[in-house]
Structure formats: C-alpha cells, structure tokens
C-alpha cells in the first residue's frame, strides 16, 4: 500500500510545493518591490553620517528639489568641497577620491525612478504641498546608502499609481489624469 500510493503522494507534494514557491515568489517580489533591491553603489555614501551627525540639509546636496522637477544629485565637485581636506583616511572616502581621480564623476545607481509617461515635479511637492522628503523617501537620515522605502501610510504598491492617488486623495490634491500623465 505504501509503494502503491507513492506516485500520488509525490504528485500532491509537488503541486503543494509549486504553490508554495509561487506564493513565496509573489511575497518576496512584493517586499523587494516595496523597498527595492539594495542598490549597489560604487561608494557607500552614508546619509546618516551626513544628515544625522553633521546636520546637513537634504537641499545641500539635492539642490534643485525646490526649484525644478528633478531633485538632482550633486556633481563630484560638491563632494570634493569638503573631502579634499576632511576625513580623507576613511576607506569609503578614499574609494570615492580614487573614483573621482579616475573617472571624474561617480556613476551612482538610480534608486528612485518614475515611469516615462509620468510627470512628477519635486518643486510642486516640496514648495507648494510642503511635503517632507521623508514622506516619500522614508527615513533617509537613518540610512547609509539610500534604499527604496516608503514612509507613507498607504499599503498600495510603492511608487505606483495607487500609491500616488491615495495621497492625492487624502490631501485633496488634483486627481485629473493629466496632472501626472504625460
């Protein structure tokens, strides 16, 4: 009887496992989608050191966040403004200086990205709506390398349309298609 039922048991087990694997995949996909895979930056830039310990403003580096649609990342010259004299013996700083020496600029990996068909303006959200950076970008001041993280209250997929609309709804912001869709 034992051997007689083995194919059946195996088949059921297989189906269950495939099911579990699919569920696992979906869940991990969700998690990864929400926080993003850990970006592999060429230099481990520590946000927490610069913001929490040194007290730099976000706008010190992401200087266009209140002026333009893009928040922008700084060019290497801004890094060198300090690090040509300060903390030059820290390994990551050494690494950074070497990269700048070699290539002139650092190829940061993109962490946040809106789709091509989306119009997103940083300055409208920061200046007019007065939204804190952390509300969308999470507690960056506690991160080393920035990872995709939502500080928002929504359960919807991060940086997806539902996520945007929930906040627009809550704040009474325009919900016309053309507000965001190009």
């Amino acid at each position, binding site marked *: 009887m034992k051997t007689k039922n083995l194919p059946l048991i195996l088949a059921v087990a*297989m189906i269950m496992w495939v099911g579990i694997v699919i569920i696992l995949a979906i869940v991990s996909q969700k998690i*990864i989608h929400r926080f993003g895979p850990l970006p592999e930056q060429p230099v481990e830039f520590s946000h927490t050191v610069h913001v929490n310990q040194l007290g730099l403003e976000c706008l010190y580096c992401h200087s266009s966040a209140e002026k333009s649609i893009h928040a922008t*990342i700084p060019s290497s010259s801004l890094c060198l403004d300090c690090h040509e004299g300060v903390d030059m013996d820290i390994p990551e700083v050494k690494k950074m200086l070497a990269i700048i020496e070699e290539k002139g600029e650092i190829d940061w990996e993109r962490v946040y990205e809106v789709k091509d068909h989306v119009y997103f303006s940083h300055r409208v959200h920061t200046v*007019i709506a007065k939204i804190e950076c952390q509300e969308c970008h999470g507690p960056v001041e506690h991160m080393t390398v920035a990872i995709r993280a939502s500080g928002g209250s929504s359960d919807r997929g991060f940086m997806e349309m539902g996520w945007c609309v929930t906040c627009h709804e809550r704040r009474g912001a325009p919900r016309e298609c053309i507000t965001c869709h*190009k």
Partner: protein
Amino acid sequence: MNNLDRRNFLKSLGMLSLAMVPDISRRPIRKLFPLLIPAEEIIPGTPYWYASTCCECPARCGTMLKVREGRVIKIEGNPNHPLSRGGLCPRGQAALQELYNVDRIRFPFKKIDNAPKTKLTWDSAINEIKELIEVGKTLFISGYITSIQKSYIQTWLGGISEAAQLFIYEPALRNSYYEANRIAFGRPDANEYHLENADLIMDFGAEFMETWESPVELSHQYSNARRVRNENIVKLIYVGISESLTGTNADEEYKIHPKTEAVVMLSLANWLLDNSQKSNINDREKSTWRRNLQAFTLQKASEMSGLSIEQLTHLGKQLDQYPNTLILCGDAVAAHEQGTDSIVAANILNYICGSYGNTIALKSGQPLDAVDAPVDFEAVIEEILNDQISNIIFYNTNPFYTYPDKERLRKALKKVPLKIALATTLNDTAAMADYVLPVHHTIETWGVEDLGNEDYSLVQPGMQPVFDSKPVEVVLQSIRKHTRLPNDFEQYIENEWQSIFNEIGGNGSFEKNWKEMLLKGGVWNRTTLQSAQVDASQGAFSFLQNYELPKVSERLTLNAHLSHRYYDGVGANKSWLWELPHQLYHYVWDVPVRVHPNVAREYGLAEGEIVSLSCNNRSIEAPVLITDQIHPKVIAMELGSGHANYGQHAVKETGNPADLLPLNFDRISGDKIFLAENVEIKKTGKRRDLVRLQGSYDQGERKIVQQISLKEVVRLHKQGAVREEPHAPKIYPEHEHEVYDWMMVIDLSLCTGCGACAVACYAENAVPVVGKQGCKHGREMAWLRLEKFEVDGRYRFIPMLCQQCEIAPCETVCPVYATVHSNEGLNIQVYNRCVGTRYCSNNCPYKVRRFNYYPTRWEEPTNLQLNPDIYHRPKGVMEKCTFCVHRLRRAKEEAKMQGRLVKDGEAIPACVQSCPTGAMSFGNLNNPDSRVTKMVNNFRGYHVFEVLNTQPSVLYLKNIKHEDKG
C-alpha cells in the same frame, strides 16, 4: 524516479525555486549621471532660452532656441526681432533636423576620386590640407553670408594669396532689385516694404508668403493689413504665371503669359496717366511720361499677356480706386532674361501710384554686391576649365544642385587638384570634395548677421556641438593662420560687437550692452519709413525709350520655382518638410510637375503618370499633377527633388527641375533664370502614384470653411452684433471648469496656410514621421493639418486640430477610459492606458486622432531633439493634440510657485506660438481680460460641424471676403 527519494526531491525543488526568486524581481539598473558642469544658474529639468538667428534662407529671422538639459529641442521666433516677431516659417523650424540629421558629417574625412572614404583626425586633415593649399590660386565658394563673416573670409583669403577669390553663390537671391532702383532712380539700394500701410497690393508673382525676400516679416505685415481698420481690409491681387500660396490667398488672381508682366505694368501706368486723378505726377511731367509710355497700350498688353481689355481696365481701376497701393514683382515671374526690366516697370508703376514713402521705400546702406551674380559663376567655371584654379573651398552652398549643366560643372571640378568642403551634411557638392570637414551648424556657433540699415542680429549657440565639428572661422585659421585675425573665436565675435556698438553709438558700458544684447538677440532700430524722395524722371525715361519687348514663346515654359518647403533644395534632407503636405495639392514625399488640363489633354496625361521633360538638351522625369490653376502655356515644378547625394530623406526618383534651366542670365543683373522655355513633354509609359493627403477640395454642404463679406462685417460691427451659441439639447451633465477653461480662436481671415503650425507641432510633440508608404496607407501622424476648401470660387485654408469638444464623441466610446475630459476643458488622451481599439478615431467627426501603426525609431542623433516633457507613444496607441498640455502644465506650475494664476499669453501651444500672422489665439476663458474672452463673442465665430453639438473648444472666425466699395 527511483533514484530520487522524497527528501532529495523536495530539497532540490526548494533550491531551484529559491534560485528563481531574485531573477523574477530583477529590475534593469539605470545609472544616474550628475550634470558635469554645475553651472550655478542651470537647473536640470528647466527650459532655457537663447536668442539667435535663423540661417536657413537669406532672410535672417531672429529665433529663440529652447534648451533642455544642454540640448536644443525647439526653435521659436524671437518676439522682439523686427523680422520674425515671434513667428517662424516651416523651414526655419525644421533647422533642427539639420542640426540633428542622421546624415550629419561626424568626423573629417578624405575621399579622393574613387578611393574609399578615409577617416581623419582634425590634426591630420588640417596638416594634409595645409601643405596642399600652398600651391596655386584658391577659390572660396560660399552660400549667402553677410558683411561680417564675409570680411573675415576675405581677409583670410588675402593671407593665402593676392589672387585668392571669394564667390558667393546664392542663386535664389537677386540683385535685380538694386539694379532696378539704380535704373529708375539712380540709387542702387534695396527696397523696404510696408505692406501694413497698403489697402491694395498688386502682386506680380512675388511669393511673399513663401520664399520672396523675408516671408515671415512680410506675412506679418500683410496680416496687419488684413485686420479690419476703418471699415476696410487690404485687397490682394495676384498676377502670375502659375499658382502659389500667395496667389491662392489673393482676392483676385490672374494668369498671364510668361515674360509679359512688364508690358502689363507699363500699360497700367499708361492707363493711369490718362484715367486717374490719383497720379503722383504733376501736369508738367505728365506729358513727358505720356510720350514715353504711349507705346504701352492696353491693347498691346492684352495681346501679349492674354488678359482681356476688360480685365486690364479693371486692374487699372483698382489702382485708381485705392489710395495706398503697393506693386510687388519678383520670384519666378521676373526670373527671365528681362527680369530686371519687369522690376523697373514695377518701380515705375509704384512711382506713378505714389507708393514711395507710403508702402515702399529705398533702404540706404545695403551693399550692392550682396551676392555675386550667377552670370559671373560662368567666368569662374571657365577659369577652372583653363586650369587656373588649384584649390576650391565650398562652404554652405550646393551649386551642384542648382547649376543646370551638371556635366560641365563635373568636368570643371575634376580639373581642380584640391577640393575642400566645409559642410554640416553631405550634399551633392560636398560629396565631390576630396576633403570634407564638418563645421558647426548655426545653432552651435557664434556669429553676427547684417540685416542692413545698421541692424545686426546675433547668432548664438544653444548647445555644445553634436559631433566633432568646428566653427568655419576656426577651421580656416587652423589651415592657414592670418595674423590680423584673432585666434580666439569668441573673442573675435565680441570684438565685432564692440565695433558695432561703437558704430551705432550705444549708451553705457559695452559689457552691460553685450549682456543685454545676448538676451535680446541683436541691435535694431527698424521703426520708421526711410525718407522717400525718389526721382524717376531721368532714369525711367531712358529706360522706357530703350525698352525692348520680350520675345514670347508660344510653346510650353517650365517654371522651376523656389519651394515653400525646400527653398532652393536645401530643405530636402528634412523629413518634417517632406511629410508636411504641399499647401495647395497636399502631396508628400514627391515633387510632381503641374500641368494645365489643356496640356494634359494634348499629351494624353493622367495624374501620376511619369513624363520626361526635356529642354536645353537635358531631360528629367517627373510624375504629373493636373491643375486648372496654372496658365495653359506654363508647367511648374518646385525645386527640391532629384538630389544626387543629400542623405536618406532626399527624393531621388524624381528629377531635378534645375537641370532644365538655361545657361543664360538676366541681361542686366546677371541673375539666375528660373524659367525654361520650349520644354518638351514625352510620355514614358511608367507611373508612380502621387500620395495626396486631401482627396477633395469641395466641402459640399458641410460648411467647414465659412466666409462673410466685408460689408456684412462692417454692418454687424456697427450694430454691435454678438455671436449666439446655438441652442442644443443637453443630454450629458455639463463639465465644470472652475479655474481654467482653455479656448483657441483661429481667425481664418489671417491664416495664410503656410504650415508653420504643423511643423511646430511635429517639433514640440515628437510626432513620428511615417514616410511615403505610411502616408499612402493614410497613416500619417500629423496632429494638426492644413485643409484647403473652396468657398465662393476661391480657396481658403483651415488648420484642423483636435477640437477639444465639451461633448466629445471619442470619450463616450473608449472602453478603458483612456480618453477623458479634464476639468480645464481639454480632451485628454492617457497614452499608457490606451489599448488601441481605435473606437475613438472612428467616432471623431473631425478625424484628428492618429493611431500608431508603426513603432517609432528615433535614430541617433535625432533622439536628442525629443522633448523630455512628452511621452513617446509606442506602437498600438492612439495619439492626438491636447493643446500642448505639457506647456500649459508648466506655465501653471510656474504661476503656482508665485502664488497666482496663469496670465494671458503665458501658456500657449506650439502652433499658436509659431504663427507668423497671429491667426491663432489661445487663452483662459475664465479670465475676463484674456484675448480669447474678447474674441469668443465675435459675430464671425463659428464651430466646425456645429450641428453635431460637440461644442468644441476651438472657435473659428469666418474668413472676411474683400469687396470693392461703391
């Protein structure tokens, strides 16, 4: 199965599945690049504007270059510039496609005879040329350049050798005007026109809306005269040999036999002396004029031109009836051996009508030898054939396209040991050079353009060069250093401006002025009419005494005229211009020969049939288009096809009409002739269908284009009439527009149908070009098209774009809510939502929705031109005009940052911005001060297909039909 127990099976399954998980979720990694040069004032994502000058044709309109993230994405007219006043023609806007042309020369190369092309570095190319150029006489052949660049090149050539020569080859430009003024008034000056002062323009072939002199400026002037002032609008009478945009816009149009325009004008002058009180001439002089003009009777003019005596008398009466007249003469009509005579005749008629000082004046200070006469080019070729020239440098010119006898030119060029081409793209001429050096496009370089009258326009670069090119001045200096010319190019330009500043006696410091000038785009002071005392007594009389009647051919004459889209062929490498339908016949991607039905009957021709045209021992092939708008003895073809070598967009299967032109010249000015007499037509038995994007010009009962008479306008205006919105049942709930309610008003009375708006739309919205096959299948993508319809026996133009209906038929049928109504009155298309059912397009009565049948490829470097504010629609998606919603969005954001609403004129779509005549207005209907609010109640207003109750947001104003008084 036996070897695999349960435990191992599960283990491996688990391993496998875990290994799969990260793979599913991997996103493509994209890199962020910081701005390399962090110029403090430059913010990524923000557009910047640089004032510059368009050099696509010799008019030199002022432009504004729109720069995003370091690249120029659009060219608009400079609103402060005296020539463009904010508008820009289709050719000027398409200059971007020269800058980002796939066929741009990317590096210096050498190609000697049949040897393969060898890539060179700049250093090696310059070093090779340096040694070769030392020997023999050097000839520099350039396109139209103005005084400052000209003197630079001349100085540089002086450093090479005493004998080195500069030849400016620009066959479309005519010296006849200077010559005619010299003959008539003893002053070799250029003309200055003031169409806005005229109430009758009698135009003998001058295509001032397309190519003649300065089309944007003159169209603007004309539109000002076409607005109702003192119960009147200007009347335009066109007398020509073939049909044109200007002729089609005219209130009356007459076709005369080629070469007879001078006789017509002189007979009208003669008639006026006897029959008009208006004449500018006192009684004492009258008898002398009469004596000199007596040979030119209406009878004579009628016999030669084919106009009836009644028609000629009517023209004379018109000149008599209107106080402020202007007679224009030019382009192909005057491009024959006696062309200068015709322009003198126009001067005489203008003089007798008293136009000088009123609608026309002579400009002082324009150099007589602006361009070298094409007749002298013969001498140059002769010199080459006699082995007197060892080096030729071509710059910005293409004689190999416009020169008729290609064999002769080829033979001559073969004899020149060193041929260098300084070019942006490889054209027919540059392809024959030994060394090809890429030079900057106007958008990449600095320069100063002389507009005459101490007006100067600045050429300012909008971006870093796209490829490894250099400014022409720098290339020349590196080939052979001239000690008198400064080494630093930008310093040289600044020095030139310094001397201009000193010359015009500017106020304040130069630095401050220079900075202001960079913003403004030049210095100009064009406000008043020049003092207009001209004296025609001596010159005109001797001219009339020696006037010889032209020999008129009774056989067919070919009019190979400048093209509205390709000018003298230079625009033929730009896909926007090929896809912009011809203004009158809506054909694309080909150039047909236009023939009268009589001619078609005589030779048994049908549309699309390919004929062989021959003349002067040369022949070309072209497809036929039959039209009754042309004189029966004339066949016409625009320049633009038949390039031997001009990149991937050039149309090669149709011949080059310039090949048929004769090798003789204007007898007085030496200008190029654009009429080929005694052309023979032969059938070839082949055919190639013309792709025409408008099938019929008959609007039936549809009332798409509507018209109202001037009398009616005056009457209704006096009554204070307003437009009444037709009463219609309301089935759907009405949309509310709380803050903005966008509205466009298009005045059909001012629209000349030039197509600037259509090209502006292509440039702004990255509208794909589908090519000839695509157009043939009806899959063209133009969001805005210009339609032509017959009203009361004349043709009128109407720009047709998405009407942004309040009750939109498209919205109700979309199954996925991809097209929805916004709270600002726009009909929005959400591209990434669209699944491509095409129901909306089926239900659209205006047929303005376009479906992407083809995937769009933006080949490098054309992708650099794409507007980052626009989503680039993939295949299978419906697209359409949304009143440039990204421009509105940006203007709203800008206003919001300042805590206010958008002001009138801040947010306008690209088409409205580009219109040279100001026919289009756009604004917020909720703003009581906006232009559209004032126009929306105009009694001329109507909607297209009002009966359908779609309630469009585009309001058309009926065309005003001119009527004679009395």
